[in-house]
């Protein structure tokens, strides 16, 4: 009996060693394991890293120029009133399950996304005032809006509005996220939640947009693994466990840059910079002088060089410098000047009468409550701010809270200061933060004029007019000192020297995986 077992074991070893070892998969480290990865349903940026190569979109945004280029739609036109977008689709596209792609598939996808039963967290909102989709011909489809919406093409260029195979969606129903089928350069092969996600090259891919340099993918397989603990990311890269690793801690990025075997691909993320929202409805921050004093009293360059080891640019306004519509005029605002800060505080009536290091007014000490989230180096930023503000006589009480708690605190206005950042390539993102009705109006500002600018800019398709409106918004935000910008977000990707041609899309988050090559 024992001999039979031995022979069996040996045979097993023999057989496994015979298995074809034609390729090693490229291992791509993701930073968190999202609970849901259906781009139509979930909102995580993490899901888009693999899935933007599984799905094709109607249009693409060229990361170099910011222009929209054809994707599944060969061309498109917009009606005079901006309410109807007509897309003329490619007729040679098939999904990975051999379902042909046509106008009906577009209608199916958009109807799925906007169906309230799906409870879409992001995609449905990206469609803005979407009304309905009309199939005009087999390869001609119209999207109707209830009012003009300038960011529509930007939305349609993102994976959240990627085109899924109607057959697969209907077949799998609630389990679709485990069996996703698109038409992109990679096939969704296997997904074990929390463990790994495997993509396999789609050999039939022939309809890539002009921003792709190759017709088909250059690597056979990409295996995505999750490295939630930042401290494990660079070691995994350095031991060869992974070839590409997202969100490397700044200090590790500095070391990797100096290491010959690796390089760091820093992707600047457009959107709203990391900034502290100052609650304009809560004393003492209801006084613009105090808010301006905080801005003057903050040495942002020191924060960036310390907490981010100089890997991110200093932020000057509400928009990151790489965002469309960014106005460099904000860079002249509030240079670090502790003397001016102190003078402004005195002007506002805050004086340190009892010499305890903290200013008072009417016996009340100048203490600010700051709530921080545990990621993105916000605790470090908070501690540095507290240390800098101690110099100008401001005391800070900070607390680290979870994301749901932060949402509640921000909305209710229980904070003096609370940070946030959000990525997005269209400046309409400002409407989420500075419109009086916005869900992230954490500065608690109610400025009818600014509301008007933001609403008009969302409706206008004239780019010059939009830029002018967003310029006004950015300057108003800084004039009123509604936020304290800290840094523009940069996604630091550690890359093994064996990997080349890793580029990122216009969002900065999503790699263009079709062109990536791996030396074996």
């Amino acid at each position, binding site marked *: 009996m024992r001999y039979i077992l031995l022979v069996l074991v040996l045979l097993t070893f023999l057989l496994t060693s015979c298995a074809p070892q034609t390729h090693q998969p490229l291992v791509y480290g993701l930073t968190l394991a999202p609970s849901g990865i259906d781009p139509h349903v979930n909102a995580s940026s993490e899901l888009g890293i693999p899935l933007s190569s599984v799905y094709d979109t109607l249009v693409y945004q060229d990361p170099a120029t910011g222009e929209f280029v054809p994707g599944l739609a060969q061309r498109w036109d917009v009606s005079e009133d901006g309410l109807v977008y007509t897309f003329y689709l490619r007729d040679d596209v098939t999904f990975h399950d051999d379902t042909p792609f046509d106008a009906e598939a577009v209608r199916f996808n958009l109807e799925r996304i906007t169906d309230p039963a799906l409870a879409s967290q992001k995609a449905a909102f990206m469609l803005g005032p979407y009304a309905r989709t009309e199939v005009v011909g087999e390869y001609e489809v119209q999207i109707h809006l209830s009012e003009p919406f300038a960011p529509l093409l930007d939305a349609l260029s993102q994976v959240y509005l990627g085109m899924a195979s109607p057959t697969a969606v209907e077949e799998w129903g609630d389990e679709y996220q485990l069996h996703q089928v698109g038409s992109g350069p990679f096939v969704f092969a296997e997904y074990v939640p929390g463990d790994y996600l495997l993509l396999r090259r789609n050999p039939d891919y022939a309809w890539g947009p002009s921003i792709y340099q190759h017709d088909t993918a250059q690597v056979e397989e990409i295996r995505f693994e999750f490295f939630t603990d930042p*401290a494990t990311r660079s070691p995994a890269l350095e031991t060869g466990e992974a070839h590409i690793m997202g969100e490397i801690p700044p200090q590790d990025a500095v070391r990797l840059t100096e290491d010959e075997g690796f390089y760091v691909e820093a992707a600047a993320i457009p959107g709203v910079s990391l900034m502290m929202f100052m609650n304009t409805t809560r004393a003492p921050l209801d006084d613009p002088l105090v808010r301006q004093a905080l801005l003057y009293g903050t040495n942002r360059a020191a924060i960036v*060089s*310390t907490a981010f080891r100089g890997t991110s640019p200093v932020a000057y306004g509400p928009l990151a410098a790489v965002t469309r519509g960014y106005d460099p005029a904000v860079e002249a605002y509030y240079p670090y000047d502790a003397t001016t800060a102190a003078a402004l505080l005195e002007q506002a009536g805050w004086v340190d009468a009892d010499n305890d290091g903290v200013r008072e007014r009417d016996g009340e000490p100048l203490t600010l409550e700051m709530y921080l989230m*545990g990621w993105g180096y916000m605790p*470090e930023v908070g*501690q540095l701010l507290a240390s800098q503000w101690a110099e100008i006589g401001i005391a800070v009480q*900070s*607390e680290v809270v979870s994301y749901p708690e932060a949402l509640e605190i921000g909305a209710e206005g229980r904070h003096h200061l609370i940070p946030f950042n959000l990525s997005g390539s269209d400046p309409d993102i400002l409407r989420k933060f500075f419109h009086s009705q916005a869900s992230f109006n954490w500065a608690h500002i109610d400025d009818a004029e600014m509301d008007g600018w933001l609403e008009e800019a969302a409706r206008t398709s004239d780019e010059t007019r939009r830029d002018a409106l967003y310029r006004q918004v950015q300057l108003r935000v800084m004039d009123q000192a509604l936020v304290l910008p800290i840094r523009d977000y940069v996604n630091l990707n550690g890359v093994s020297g064996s990997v080349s041609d890793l580029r990122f899309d216009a969002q900065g988050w999503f790699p263009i995986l079709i062109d990536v090559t791996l030396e074996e």
Partner: protein
Amino acid sequence: MIEWTARARRPLLRQPVTALALAWLVLLVLETLVLPPLLPTDPRFADPAQVLLPPAAGHVLGTDALGRDVLSRLVWGGRWTLGMAMAALVVTFVLGLPVGLAAGSLGGRVDALTMRVVDALLAFPALLLAMVVVAILGTGLLPVAVAVGITAAPAHARMVRSVALEIRSRPYIDAARSVGCPPLRIALRHILPNAAPVLIAFATTQLGWILINGAALNFLGLGAPLGTPEWGAMLAEGRGYLRDGPWISVFPGLALTLTVLAAHLVGNGIEEALKRD
């Protein structure tokens, strides 16, 4: 009646290791009381020009990732860490002692009932229980002290009970009972004083355990407010910099290890000293 005035077999200070450990603890307590205000650098002051400096003159133990002096954080940290442990120990005594004493000196149904509850609590992983308590009370140094104190209390109660049970079987307790001494008086006047030395030894050992659990909760960010120099929190701050700034976590780690070890050794030493011939 008190019987522990009898000569100890090995006085505490005749055990070199225990004496050394005791000296470390005494020094540490003195240090945390006296030294912090005398330090030249503020433990929260972040100097962007002095980030991640290795130990050298000026910054004897180096600086951390935000440019703060590790030495001054370590010294101030002792105050927070030990203070929290002491507060937790008080909570342990307040909760554990009455329960254990009642169970041990009354026996019977009281004993059976309380000990089942204690068993149930002991079966629960300590750190998890502490985290549940923190989740209810909210984060902060005092909640952590209470949480750690509560988790240490069941073991404490068990110890008090077993000592009380043992003392209860001594002839002088029978004597006290036969002259009509009420149970409460027996517990407080006859059992407790005789149990005291063993309990002090046990409490010292528990102190080490409390220090570790308190530091663990702080490490997880559930304890001291952000930026507080506390040893567990310092370990957490340094763990992202093990390659480029090991000194950030090595020194608080070392301080914690030595203190826990010292508490354990002193506890053992007291126990040794109490052993009768």
